[in-house]
């Protein structure tokens, strides 16, 4: 029994981080119908910001989080202006953007690899290797902090989307782009904003990831299918769905990892993605069968 609770705790803590990694992806897809395959590579870019912050100045990666988020948000605005703005008129837009973001992912990987080489990195603040003990249970502090902070950030994002005027506009654009534009929403501005927030979330996730997982520039290929499975299961664009899916899948992955074998735990995500696409392409919370 303690085993099961133990695995559950580890799965949930990781799930929180994965939810944050996926939420930016979901937001960007929801508002702009861009399947951003470059998202994980940008998370790694964020992780490098935290890594070098910690290495050069000794700043804690959690403190570096807003810095990484801000830098990445800026890069997001740049990417949107340079690449996606002109693509918005393309007929095969959403398919085109998959290939474009795929190319962007390679560019980011190439730049990071050129700058920092392909060695495994990890930031190691004191809590990363420490743990709380509750009787027989242990909770690794690093994963717990990362998971909690992720959920706080996602909570704040949901509140922003729900109660602020800009959040209103973003949600309206997600639901129906043309109608929102007719009602006076500056759709282009909202798109830039949502894109910046989405990539900013990648930066934030990156600084948390930097002490939870070890990372190197080419690692993002492993994450893309994992995050896609979370976002697709969550219903392509629903933040709440993404969180639920992330927690669900990472708990399942934790059980698979313990009982079947560590190599098969990532397989959970890939197989889940396959099965979801086949059985219920619109995901748990999605309503748009047009994606199928």
């Amino acid at each position: 029994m303690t085993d099961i609770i133990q695995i559950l705790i580890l799965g949930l803590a990781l799930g929180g981080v994965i939810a944050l990694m996926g939420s930016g992806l979901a937001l960007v897809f929801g508002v702009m119908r861009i399947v951003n395959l470059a998202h994980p590579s940008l998370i790694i870019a964020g992780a490098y910001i935290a890594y070098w912050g910690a290495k050069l100045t000794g700043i804690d990666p959690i403190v570096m989080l807003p810095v990484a988020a801000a830098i990445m948000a800026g890069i997001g605005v740049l990417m949107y202006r340079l690449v996606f703005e002109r693509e918005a008129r393309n007929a095969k837009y959403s398919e085109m953007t998959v290939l474009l973001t795929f190319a962007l992912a390679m560019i980011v990987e190439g730049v990071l690899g050129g700058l920092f080489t392909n060695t495994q990195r990890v930031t190691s603040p004191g809590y990363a290797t420490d743990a709380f003990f509750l009787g027989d249970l242990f909770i690794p502090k690093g994963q717990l902090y990362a998971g909690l902070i992720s959920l706080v950030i996602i909570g704040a994002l949901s509140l922003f989307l729900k109660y602020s005027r800009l959040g209103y506009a973003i949600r309206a654009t997600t639901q129906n782009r043309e109608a929102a534009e007719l009602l006076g929403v500056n759709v282009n501005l909202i798109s830039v904003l949502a894109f910046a927030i989405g990539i900013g979330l990648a930066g934030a996730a990156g600084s948390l990831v930097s002490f939870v997982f070890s990372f190197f520039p080419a690692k993002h290929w492993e994450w893309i299918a994992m995050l896609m499975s979370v976002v697709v299961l969550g219903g392509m664009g629903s933040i709440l769905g993404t969180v639920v899916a992330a927690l669900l899948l990472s708990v399942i992955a934790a059980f698979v990892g313990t009982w079947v074998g560590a190599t098969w735990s990532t397989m959970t995500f890939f197989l889940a993605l396959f099965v979801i696409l086949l059985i219920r392409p619109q995901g748990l919370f999605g309503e748009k069968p047009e994606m199928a």
Partner: protein
Amino acid sequence: MSVSLQQSSASAVLEARRAHNDKLARKADQARAVWFPLTLLALLSLLPLLQLSGNYNYVLHIVLFTASYVAMASSWNILGGFTGYVSLGHAVFFAIGGYFSGMILARFGISTIVTAPVAGLVAAIAGYLIGRITLNVRGPSFIISSIALLMIARILFDNWAFIGGANGVTLPVNSLSAQWAKVPYYYAMLAIAAVTVWVSYRIKHSKFGLGLRAISKDEVKAESAGIDTRFYKVLAFALSAFFVGMTGAVWGEYLTYLRPNIFLIILVSANLVLMCILGGKGTIAGPVIGAILIVALNELFVATMGASELNILGTGLVMALGLIFFPLGLVGTLARRGKLPRVLNWD
């Protein structure tokens, strides 16, 4: 009286239309430069004679390497170019072909050149089964599912002890002298590339190819026009897996080892997509031109900068710029502007 008049005028209209179609077809035949690829093929098949006068192994290697990508890109084009279903998972079939023939070579000593068609068949069967599942979804979902497929295959290959797991398998080296060791693979690859281009040409000019292109324009309308879109798509997927599998088989023996991190990487798939996009998706000459360009660029990058990270960066940059500025590719853009040189018109 009036009925017979109508009939005769209807048949006259049909007659006129047929004559017009024939005229168009003749015009297209005249514009098509089939002699060019044939001459190129003839010249390339004489190239190994160079070995009589010195050591040109590097030249042979480059042509062989290009031919392998010509075959794979043309093969990818059957699915991605004609039907518009972009697959980033074709490296899986490359690996299936390579491992199937490679394991036979390692166990029984039968050259992969002999077993390559069987390897292609195995890859095609795998493609058929996978296609039955993944071709149910369209657009971005299909692309994502193909990436997931690659990831799943990588984990399976990495952990399958029988085929050597992540360490892979070392294959026996053939008994020819260094001077001639590459030549059998050279001819095999050249033949595979030629057959693939020819098959994709035949497909494009068949009713099947017409159906595939109808699917890429509007699948629902194609379906309602009586095309069995599901069967067409799955068949296209299997065919495009076939030649990639064959290429993988010969490539494995040429490399003399099989390893998941050589066969099952997304860069292989990405290269196929990139070649087709750069050359022109859905055209016959496009993938060939794209393959030649990318291999040349690759050699340039490696020769001048060396590092593999910069290689990835270069691939990504070329792909992004190509997508943004020439979404139709070289052949497609030139044809759209009516400036396609005749030597590049193989359609």
